[in-house]
């Protein structure tokens, strides 16, 4: 059976790519009504964090690697 942590890794990776992409887009095309503390660019570093977590979990629990 595929580990649940693999599913989580894949989903986090996909979410990371989407959120990082949205954060970068927002950097060049700022929203007309930005959220509070938009200058922190939370989407960029949170998206990057999700990508790192996603990659680690996807590889660590890749099907065939785990018992």
């Amino acid at each position, binding site marked *: 059976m*595929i580990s649940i942590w693999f599913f989580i890794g894949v*989903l986090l990776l996909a979410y990371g790519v989407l*959120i990082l*992409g949205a954060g970068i887009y927002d950097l060049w095309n700022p929203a007309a009504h930005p959220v509070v503390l938009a200058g922190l660019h939370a989407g960029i570093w949170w998206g990057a964090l999700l990508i790192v977590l996603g990659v680690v979990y996807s590889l660590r629990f890749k099907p065939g690697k785990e018992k």
Partner: protein
Amino acid sequence: MLQSAPSRLVSLSGVDIAIVVLYFFAVIGIGFYLKRYTKTGEDFFLAGREMTAWVAGLSFLAANLGSLELMGWAASAYQYGILATHWYWIGAIPAMLFLGIVMIPFYYISKTHSVPGYLKLRYGEPARAFSAISFGFMTVLMSGINMYSMALVLRVVLGWDINFSIWVSSITVAVYVGLGGLLSAIFNEVLQFVLIWLGALLISIIGLIEAGGWSGMVARIHHNFPAQDFTHLWRTMGSFSDNPMGIHWVGIVFGLGWVISFGYWTTDFLVVQRVIAAKNLRAAKLAPIIGSAFKMMVPFIVILPGLLGLALLPPGFLTGETQAIATGGHSYNEVLPLMMARYLGPGLLGLGITALIAGFMSGMAGNVSAFATVWTYDIYRALFRKQAPDAHYVSMGRWCTILGVLVSIGTAYFVMQFRSIMDYVQQLFSFFIAPLFGTVILGMLWKRATPAGGFWGLLTGTFSSLGMWLWVYLDPTALRYIALSSQAKPMAENMFRALWAWIICVVVTVTVSMVTRPKPESELAGLVYGCTELPSEGHLALYQRPIFWAGVIAAVFVVLQVVFW
């Protein structure tokens, strides 16, 4: 249809919608994938009893961490301040540790499939039937609350039609739990647990940055509300009138910390089911201890946004539900969505909304899978069809999952009329959970408790609790007898009612047991302390023993009480 509500806080961008849609595909995909692994009743109802301590522990906590938790306790934090944290610390940690160290061995060694199943082994069929029926009733009501609270969030934040939210999310839960049973529910709960943290954590982080850290937030709260103390856990507990909750430390320690908390965490089958699905006794003992470590941290994503609301939103910006409807303003229940809209931009907002939906689904799947087990094993098989092939009961479990979802949808519409969601939940706990805890704890720790004592104690405890609620409902002045003060607020009333119901249950159980015949000790093996041989852990290294980690968690718990005193 999505945009049929009159107003909304935010609009989802394309990337936000993609994140939400991806989540729905993931949970349903997991359900389809796991269907092939759920052939027998043991697979469907107990996940094959193959879960590791981490998976069982996170699922144990996620089943409790519904959208009700996220939204309801953030609202309570705005209303009552840091006092709401009691429900996460004294109202959970001691009970979770007690479950792991003292009670799990009896649930696990007896090989019961449910808490009512344990009562059957310990007290006989009448106690099992009564607890199964009352549990089924409570579970669908709780499931309805979860559903309503999620739909409310989606209406407030996104303007989604409340019926659309309820039906789409409920059908999704019915599909993945119906396909993969408890295994699917547990897998998705672990996924949902991760998403809840990653979706909600950012609100607290950015909020603290805006408020100037913890001390900045506290200073702002004191400035906004100079007459109230919203930031101390115990200091204002000496008198009913000194704190925003209108409660006394006796109600918190004995009503919440003892009866409600121990009752919920040790006897509510919704959470216990996840632990008895563990692969061995050590994993089953560790699961609630792992869960307790994360439970202790949940206030960071639930209570803190409520406190940040007190610090950063204009005083009086949020009001009670009735006033909010009358004035067209915002209610306490909207504090978490408001903070989400305040900080989360494109993409992150989708993740935040997904966290709320995941919270709803984990809570609802927990209720539905527990309901399906109790209905199939403790009501249908016990009372209607004792002998049938295993495949028949699995089929019944699948249909019952769908039925449970449909009944829950009905209750979602029913709970819409309640003023405060959390008060309503605590009412239910005081009716059903408090007396059940008295029955189970006496059954496990006192071998003299008899079948008649257990049944009559549970029955009188439950009906006395309902009677006390009715008494105050018909004559509000009775509050001074039930809650020891006419100033007590609904939450305090619930705590004291639970305490009385537990005491009545225990007194009746002991009294009836003393005049009736106990079971012979040979029939109590594996069920009762003193009649059960518990496996030694002496051969394990210290760090591998559950008792060691329970001690670590207990020490951190004590430190937190002192720090936030």
